[in-house]
């Protein structure tokens, strides 16, 4: 039993166990699951969440949260669509749209970061509020209508082009984002300082780290990744508007939690975020293949979150360590 707990307590142990379980189920009920085309469709389905999760990872590492990613995606989708549409789908129009979108992301990230650090407001509240504000801006920008994209050039290719005739563009961008984020976190001084800031802000300040800077940059990265997701989504849907990417923050957060990331900060990496997104995608795919009605998927998503967190809590070394530390004899008696 101890060995089982130890194996399950290891993140990779957990991941392998879950994957094996799914494979066994699918091997019995639905062999189509193992076709390469299905793997591609799973990846395509999660690529947007995956891109956003990579950015959200930075915020989660410094102990924050960003609920505005869905609305941020809607905003960049709308901005890009409008610029592309008004310019008559020229390259210049497209690029201006991208630059304005990224600028908007940076602005929102800075606002988040400053409110969280300088004004010491809870990230949850700040980003909940900005979620509504950004949706409000989307409504103003679009006039409440959908912007339809009629193009077969870059605006179409961004979300639908297949590299080598095989791999959809969003997957390529997803992989690229994951690699860049992994490099930032793993090899740069900024990455090292980010982990330190998330793990112990007081100690970090005392070794000369500008913790506020780390946090602000994290929010910027998060907003940008959400923005990239939104722009791709506009191209995939060939339209953008107020309901674009509605509720995506929930899916991204699910990916984070299922990936075993510690929402208190300081722990985790790109593999966790990517694996989380992957697992959610696989389970959704599994439900579809098994013929579970689509009305059930959200229900199942909730169950998955609770199961993932429980598994983490009961088995991971960290949670055990904390339990041991916190329940001293004196506390029990009091």
């Amino acid at each position, binding site marked *: 039993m101890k060995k089982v707990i130890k194996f399950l307590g290891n993140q990779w142990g957990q991941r392998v166990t879950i994957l094996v379980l799914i494979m066994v189920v699918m091997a019995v009920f639905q062999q189509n699951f193992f076709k390469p085309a299905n793997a591609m469709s799973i990846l395509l389905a999660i690529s947007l969440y995956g891109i956003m999760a990579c950015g959200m990872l930075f915020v989660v590492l410094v102990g924050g949260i960003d609920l505005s990613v869905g609305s941020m995606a809607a905003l960049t989708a709308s901005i890009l669509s409008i610029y592309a549409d008004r310019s008559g789908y020229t390259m210049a129009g497209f690029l201006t749209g991208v630059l304005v979108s990224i600028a908007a992301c940076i602005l929102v990230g800075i606002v988040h970061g400053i409110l969280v650090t300088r004004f010491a407001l809870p990230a949850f509240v700040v980003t909940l509020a900005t979620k509504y504000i950004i949706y409000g801006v989307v409504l103003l920008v679009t006039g409440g209508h959908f912007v339809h994209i009629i193009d077969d050039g870059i605006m179409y290719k961004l979300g639908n082009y297949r590299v080598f005739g095989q791999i959809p563009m969003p997957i390529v961008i997803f992989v690229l984002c994951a690699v860049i984020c992994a490099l930032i976190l793993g090899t740069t001084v900024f990455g090292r*300082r980010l*982990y330190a800031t998330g793990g112990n802000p007081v100690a970090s300040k005392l070794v000369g780290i500008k913790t506020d800077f780390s946090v602000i940059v994290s929010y910027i990265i998060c907003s940008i990744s959400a923005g990239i997701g939104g722009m791709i989504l506009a191209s995939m849907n060939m339209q953008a508007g107020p309901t674009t990417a509605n509720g995506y923050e929930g899916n991204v957060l699910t990916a984070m939690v299922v990936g075993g990331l510690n929402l208190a900060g*300081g722990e985790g990496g790109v593999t966790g975020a990517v694996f989380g997104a992957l697992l959610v995608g696989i389970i959704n795919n599994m439900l579809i293949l098994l013929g579970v009605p689509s009305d059930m998927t959200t229900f199942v998503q909730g169950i998955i979150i609770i199961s993932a967190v429980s598994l983490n809590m009961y088995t991971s070394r960290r949670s055990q360590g904390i339990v041991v530390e916190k329940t001293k004899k004196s506390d029990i008696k009091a």
Partner: protein
Amino acid sequence: MEEKSVLLEAKGICKQFNGIPVLKNVNLEIRRGEVHALMGENGAGKSTMIKIITGVYTMDDGQILMEGKPVTISCRQDARCCGISVIYQELSLIPALTVTENIFLGQEISRFGFTKKKEMRRQVKALIEKYGFDLDPDMLVSSMGMAQRQMVEILKALSMEAKLIIMDEPTASLSAAETETLFKTIDGLRQKGTSILYISHRLEEIYRMADRLTVMRDGENVGVLTREEMTPQKVTTMMIGHEIKEDKNRERRQRYEGNCLEVTGLAYKNILKDVNFKAYGGEILGIGGLVGTGRTELIRCIYGAEKPSRGKITLNGKPVSRSIAKNIKAGFGLVPEDRRNEGFVPLLSIEKNLAIASYDKLARFGVVNRKKEINFAQEAIRGYDIRPPMRHLPVGNLSGGNQQKVVLGRWLSRKPLVLLLDEPTAGVDVGVKHELYHLMRALATTGSIVIMVSSDLAELTHVADRILVMHDGRFFEEFTHENATQTAILLAASGVHTSEGVPL
């Protein structure tokens, strides 16, 4: 004066932790209506003793008598029933509630699940009038100062008909005026027949308030003094005991006058008033004094972690920056007092905790040179004997001593010009302690300035070349290594000059 009857008597209390005896046959006798002081150095067993009386710990052996009758106190509720209440340093009040609500918290008078507010308010009012406190039953605790909050705590104790109130360093967070109010309150309680067990490091408070004094040392009680017998010399001698004569003729290090940190006229809030000193390369400068006299604030000001309200800090003639990052580059390092919360990042590996302050050397254009980082960590792990020698292990999993080696090693590997240490060996076992001393000495020998704040008197007299003792926000007395004795340092910390030191 007639002899007051005995309220609480603890006889032959023994307590072990993991086989290490912490209390050895301790006796304590508290009489009705007296202020009884309990003194002793850190680790003498005072807190353990209190925790046994209040039922937080159970004793291994011994007996507690309350008004002559033996009682068993095995949980906090038992202690409360016996009429024993504690007022802790960190208060346990809920700020969002009123005085009345706080006092009746958990024992509300109620009928059919509804609280009887008027009845509770009436009772609180009666209590306030009885003891003459300056409190309003409807006041919110969040709007009160520390002293008033303490009064609410005392009131809470009295509402449970406490006969003995234990106060653990009650003046630590109070201003001088607030302390005065507290003393008046204590006086009032004494006259009404309530006993107080008063724990404090401040001798002057003890002389002022205590009727009798029990001194503890190394888990034993050394003696009980009555008011007439209490003199600073006697108390300190009892606290420290027989001092082992140290070999004072140890090897002297060379003083490098070229490396000099100078602090002039430094003031910080109302904690530091006027601090002046010079520290030279090659010496370990010890800073002594009682906890809360501003020693930590002083070194944090030097390091750039706090902003002094007045004064000048210069290193080799150049003013020291107010930015920690710049100071680290200029050769400063700080080992903070609260290791767990301020010293390291528990989830990060040994390697990354060691390297965290040295990426100016281990990275180029913001990208970490992995090879250099690994080498840096491995050299440190080997050089400072960090155990287990596994660079991937999270520092939170190490023992206290090894955690401290990581925190210290982070700076040693940078060869700092000035290393500031705040209680460097607190919570570290004896073997590692000496390793840490050795590392500090080795650094000083290379010409660095080492400044060590410590409450451990043996450590100060053993390690420091020069000792400055702080009292009341200023340096009060200076000792050389040769002349320093633990008694003299302790007296200086309490504001008593001795022949061993040089008054400043």
